[in-house]
């Protein structure tokens, strides 16, 4: 049973991580408090819903199971484009004003939610998960590890690896880090900061889209989907230490594991309270999160 709890904890951590990864970029690297992140997740989920409907309508039933393979890049792409538009029309005015970005993007979130309500209707929509993700891996004494949860763990790892290579190994990534660390200097060296900003934000949004796609396997798809995850996602990033991928992973693991433990020992409501109390206490102890960066500047 403890094995299963461990797995559950891992699974919750992976979902949290997936939800927070995009935020780790937009908030962690760019210092934009994007409250519309949840709505970008929602966009990813609705993209999956649309992909499913297109498959249902235009392709033979035998092909249906493969819609999900296409849905992941589709969600990424759509959320990417929305993120790009958002950055170019709005976010670029907000660099260096993190608290203002919080308020403005909250307004954006409201609009996107209502937009979803107008387009898709207020009720939830259903996404049928592909049959190859049904069932699970049976390991001893009837403990079943659902394929969907395993799939999400794998997806997170894939995203992490891709992000790692993009940020730390690619040419584009190097520019991105340069801009995030010293905008003026990067600009002096001929890096187009406008372009890099837009790309970075869009990639963060795209990853939120992937998260939305994955979440269709686990939960509801409706206009308010994003609101369920947004606060948790911020907690993950802050707990981990802003600006560090490793920190985000640790943050997600910490919250996921403790959540499962507390929920198992007490109940869901109390478990949630305890987790948040722990976060508050932890931040008192280490205000900069698990992985902190020191600086010598005055502020």
């Amino acid at each position: 049973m403890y094995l299963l709890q461990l797995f559950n904890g891992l699974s919750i951590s992976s979902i949290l991580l997936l939800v927070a990864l995009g935020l780790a970029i937009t908030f962690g690297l760019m210092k934009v408090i994007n409250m519309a992140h949840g709505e970008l997740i929602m966009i990813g989920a609705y993209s999956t819903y649309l992909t499913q409907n297109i498959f249902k309508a235009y392709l033979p039933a035998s092909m249906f199971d493969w819609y999900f393979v296409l849905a992941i890049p589709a969600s990424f792409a759509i959320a990417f484009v929305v993120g790009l538009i958002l950055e170019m029309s709005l976010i670029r005015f907000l660099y260096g004003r993190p608290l203002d970005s919080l308020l403005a993007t909250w307004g954006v979130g409201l609009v996107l939610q209502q937009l979803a309500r107008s387009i898709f209707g207020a009720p939830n929509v259903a996404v049928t998960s592909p049959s190859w993700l049904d069932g699970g891996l049976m390991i001893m004494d009837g403990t079943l590890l659902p394929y969907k949860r395993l799939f999400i763990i794998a997806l997170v790892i894939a995203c992490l690896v891709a992000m790692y290579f993009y940020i730390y190994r690619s040419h584009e990534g190097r520019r991105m880090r340069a801009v995030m660390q010293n905008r003026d200097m990067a600009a002096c060296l001929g890096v187009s900061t406008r372009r890099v900003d837009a790309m970075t934000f869009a990639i963060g949004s795209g990853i939120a889209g992937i998260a939305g796609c994955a979440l269709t396997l686990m939960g509801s798809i409706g206009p308010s989907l994003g609101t369920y995850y947004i606060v948790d996602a911020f907690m993950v990033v802050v707990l981990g230490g802003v600006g560090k991928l490793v920190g985000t992973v640790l943050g997600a693991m910490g919250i996921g594991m403790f959540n499962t433990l507390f929920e198992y020992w007490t109940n869901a409501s109390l478990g949630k309270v305890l987790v948040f109390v722990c976060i508050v206490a932890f931040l008192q102890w280490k205000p900069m999160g698990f992985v902190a960066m020191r600086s010598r500047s005055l502020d």
Partner: protein
Amino acid sequence: MKKRLFYQLGLLLVAFALVLAGCGGNNNEPASTNGEASKVTDAPAEDGIKVGILHSQSGTMAISEVSVIDAEMMAIDEINAAGGVLGKKIIPVLEDGASDWPTFAEKARKLISEDKVATVFGGWTSASRKAMKPVFEELNGLLWYPVQYEGLEASPNIFYTGATTNQQIVPSVTWLLENRGKKFYLLGSDYVFPRTANLIIKEQLKAEGGELVGEEYTPLGHTDYATIISKIKEAKPDVVYNTLNGDSNVAFFKQLKDAGITSKDITTLSVSVAEEEIRGIGVDVLEGHLAAWNYYQTTDTPTNKTFVENYKKKYGDERVTADPIEAGYTAVYLWAAAVEKAGSTDVAKVKEAAKDLEWDAPEGKVKIDGETQHIYKTVRIGEVQSDGQFKELWNSGEAVKPDPYLKGYDWAASIQPTE
């Protein structure tokens, strides 16, 4: 110095304008702001009867409530097409409760005291009803509340057209004990309806020989049920009695299926999952699970046939009807019938006329109970089929008399309100 002062003066001017706009503007010409209220209201206001429709059109509860608005509007249109009430057209005034309880109270107050509506159809959550109740009692308005709820209430200014506990929960528990097993696991969202419902169920289980093997509440908006499902597995219940709210149902049922538990392994009976919710959860995960309601789209009555047809014709073929939708629709007709009988929209007269009023609703014959202002309803237990519709497994035969305080049940003596 000068600039500062001019600047403050400017602000003060704006303040003035606002205060005046906020309070003064309206009194002189009460119709003006109401005129904007809905496009329909611009029609001749004199020879119509205004009614309020107050549900959440935004926020988390919009998921459920928007369909009820549709049903109520349809009933109003039908009645108007048939000549209206007392020879006058019904004019709906729409307001958004925005899933926020104080907003419900505010809008209720506006509908009664500003728009002077004859009655209001509205509310979904218990909290929204509790928020509106004092307003209706204070201003002597009339509210028709269309959703099943936890009982223990009977306001003289509210008509309850959804089921109270003895028309849904109590009979379903009895049925489950007789047909599915004795070991119950109670799972609900952390709010008033599930907690009160489970309080009742626990007493009933004690009295009728059931066994409680677990009880769990999850915060509203909870999205991961892995831990709860392992707890359920450990407890090995025969029945999971599910009072989860809206979105949580989706996560719970999807993850229940992934954990390898089907309706054959454990029976789940839900009281908040209707046809509408099935569409959002997906038939693939819900097939075979049970629900307890008073109405299904498949309920076989002549009125229901035309009701479903008209609803689909009006709002689209893919739409479905469900219990609260039907209860909202019924509420409008019951009110109209009461007004016709009373010959007036006066609250006291309508209430008097509504006593023992009968109507052939889509769910079957319903009757208003004068004492509690609830309605007699038939209890039905249904099983989700692969087409997303319910198959009725059992019904109570005749309409059950509403008993919101469960006075007719000895075991419920301890759950009376203290006041």
